[in-house]
C-alpha cells in the first residue's frame, strides 16, 4: 500500500512538474516567504502565456 501510494505521489509530482502546474505553488510559497501578496492565479498564468508568445519553441519532426 505504501509503495503504491509512493508511486502515485511520484507520478502526480512528475505530471505537475511537467505541465508547469507546480510553478504556481512555488510562486505562492515564494511570495509567502518574502511577505508579498501574490497576484491572482488568472493574472499570473496570463503573464506566463504572454511570455510564451514571444519565445517560440520548435517541435521536431
Amino acid at each position: 500500500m505504501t509503495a503504491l501510494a509512493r508511486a502515485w505521489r511520484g507520478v502526480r509530482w512528475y505530471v505537475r512538474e511537467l505541465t508547469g502546474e507546480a510553478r504556481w505553488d512555488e510562486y505562492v510559497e515564494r511570495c509567502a516567504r518574502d511577505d508579498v501578496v501574490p497576484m491572482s492565479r488568472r493574472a499570473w498564468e496570463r503573464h506566463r502565456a504572454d511570455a510564451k508568445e514571444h519565445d517560440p519553441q520548435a517541435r521536431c519532426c
Partner: protein
Amino acid sequence: MATTTPVRRPGGPRRRPTPAGVAIWGGIALVGAVCWTVLALSRGEEVSALWILFAALASYAIAYRFYARFIADRVLQVDDSRATPAERLENGQDFDVTDRRVLFGHHFAAIAGAGPLVGPVLAAQMGYLPGTIWIIVGVILAGAVQDMMVLFFSMRRDGKSLGQMVREEIGVVGGTAALIAVFAIMIIILAVLALVVVNALAESPWGVFSIGLTIPIALFMGFYLRYLRPGRVSETTAIGVALLLAAIIVGGWIDDTGLGDTLTLSHETLTICLIVYGFVASVLPVWMLLTPRDYLSTFMKVGVIVLLAVGLVLARPVLQNDDITSFAMDGDGPVFAGKLFPFVFITIACGALSGFHALIASGTTPKMIAKESHVRMIGYGGMLMESFVAISALIAACVIDQGLYFAMNSPAGATGGTASSAAEFVGTLGFTLSPDTLTQAAAAVQEPTLVSRTGGAPTLAVGISQIFSDAFGGGLAAFWYHFSIMFEALFILTAVDAGTRVGRFMLQDTIGNVWHRFGDTSWKPAAWSASAIVVAAWGYMLYVGVTDPLGGINQLFPLFGISNQLLAAIALCLCVTLMLKHGKARWVWVPLVPLVWDLVTTMTASWQKVFSDNPAIGYFAQADRYREARDAGQVLAPAKDGGQMDQIITNSTTNGVLQLTFAILVIVVVANAVLVWIRAIRAGGLPTTEVPAVPSHVVAPADFFATADEKAAVREWEQSRLTGSRR
C-alpha cells in the same frame, strides 16, 4: 549559504566495478550479442520481431552506460562544480533550474514527432536489417552524440542557438550559410510532414472528421485554461484526451451519414485547408491553439510509445519481409529509388541522426539544465528514446503482409489506383496478393481503399492496428488504425504550427537587422507578412508534392532526409571545431567520425539526386527525359497529358535546384570550418566564446536514478538552504 561540494567531478577517482555491476552488464551484453547473432544468421526462416526489439534495448543500455559516460567524463569533461546558465541567470522564465527528469520529458517531447515514425516505414522496402542496423548504430555513434555535444556546447555559452554558435566559432561566411540552410531545411521539413498528413487524410472521411475535431477541442482547451480554470493543465489535458478518443470513435459512424461525402476530400482541397490552417494557427495567440495542442500531442506521444512497447511484447509478431531485399541491391524499389548506400541512411534520419535536434538542443533545453552532467541523460538519453520509437515503427512496417506494404507505398502512377491493378503491379514485384485481400484489408480498417496510400502514416497505422489487435484483442482494428492516424497527424500539425512560428521569428529577426521595425514580433503587419511568407514557402513545396504525377513522397522524401542530415553535418562540424578550439584534438574523433560518415552519405546522395543520369534518381535527368519527350510531342507515363508533363519538368527542376543549394551551403560551412580547424590545430587551441566558470551551489543527482550518496547530498543541501533562508 550552502557550499556543499557537488556530487561528481571530472578526473576524480574512477569507481571500481562491483561484482553485481559486472554481472548485470555482462548479462545485458550477452542478451544483446545473442539477439544480434540471431538477426545476423537467420536466413529465410521465421524471425520474431522481438529479436530486433531486444537487440536495440541491450545496445542502448550499453551505449548509455559506457559510451555516453565516456563522452561526458573524458571528451566533454562535464564539471558539476561549474554553475549552469539556469543557475547563474535564473529568471523563472527561460532560464530556470529544472529537475533532470522533468527536463528529460520536455526535451523528448520537443525532439520526437512523426519523423521517426515515417522514415523507417519507407526504409522497410530494403528489408528489416539495413534499417535496424542504421537506427541502432547510427543513434549510438552519431545521433545521440550530436544531441549531447550540441547541448553541452550551447549550455557552456548561455544557451546560444546553433546559427549563432556557427557564426561566432566558425566565421561569418559559415554562419550566414548555416542560417540560410537552417531556414530552408525547416521549410522542406514542414512541407514533407504536411504531405504525410495530406496523404493520410485524403479520401478518408473518418480521418478528416477526427483530425478536424482536434481544432475545436484544442480551442476549447485553450479557452478553458485561460478563462475557466487558469493553470489546471492536467485536468484540461484529461478532458481533451477524452474528447479526442470520442472524436475517433464517432468518426467511425460518419461514413454512413450525409457528412461522409462532404468530408471525403481530395488531396488538393486538403492542401488548401492545411495552408490556411497553418497561417491562422501561426498568427493566433499561442494560448488559443498551439499550447493546448502541444499538451494533447505530448500526452499522446507518451501514451502511444508505452502502448507500442507493451503491444509488441504481448503480440510477439513475426517479420514478414526479407532481411535485405533485392531493391536494396538494385536500387529499383517502388517506394523510393536508389540503392542501400546511400539511401537507407538518408531515408531514416530521425531516430538515427537528426540535424533538427541540434536546433532544440541549442534552444530552450540548455537554459534549463540544473547540472552539467545532465547533458548525458537529457541529450544522449533523449535521443536513445527517440531511436526506440523508430525501431518500433520499423517493426510495425515489417510485420504486415509485404504485398500489402508495396500496394500501399508505391505511387499511384505505378499501382494504377485500383485493387486489381495494384495486385497485378505487386505481382510484378514478386509478391502474391489478390485484389480481394486488398479490398478486405481496407474494409477491416474502414477505409475506402489502401492502394497507394503513400507517406508512411497509413502503413504504420495498419501495422500498429495489427499489433494492437493481436496484443489486446477485441476486433478493434479500425479504431486502432484511426487512432494511429490521429496521433501521427496530431504530432505533425503541432510541428507545423510551431515550425511556422519559429520560421516567422527567424525571418523577422533576420529582416529586422536591416529594417529595425520588422523585427518587432508584436507588430502585427510584420508578424502577419512574415507568417504569410513562411506558409507560402512550405505551402508551395507541399503543392509540388501533392500534384506530382511521379508521387510526392517518392520525389520529396529524399530531399527531406538529405536536408535533415545536412543540418546534422553543420551541427557536427561545429562540435569538431569546438573540440579543436578547446585543444582536445585527442578526442576529436568522437564528433569527427559521425561527421565524415554523414558527409559521405549526404554528399553521395546529393550527387546522385543532382547528377545521376538515371531518371528514376537524378532530378535533372528526370526533367530532361520528360522535356525531350514533351518536345517530341509524346506523353510519358505516369503523366496523362501535356500539363502533367510540364508539372514533372518544373517540379523535378525545383527539387534539383534545392538539393544542389543545400549541398553547396553545407560545403561552404564545412570549408569555412576546415580553415578554423587548421588554425586551431597549429595553435594547439583557440579562444572560444565559452562563458568562464562560476562555482555552482546547486546539488542534484547525475542520472535517472539517484544513488544513496547523491540522495544524502541533496538532503543535506536542502536542509542548509532552508536554514540559510531563515537567517
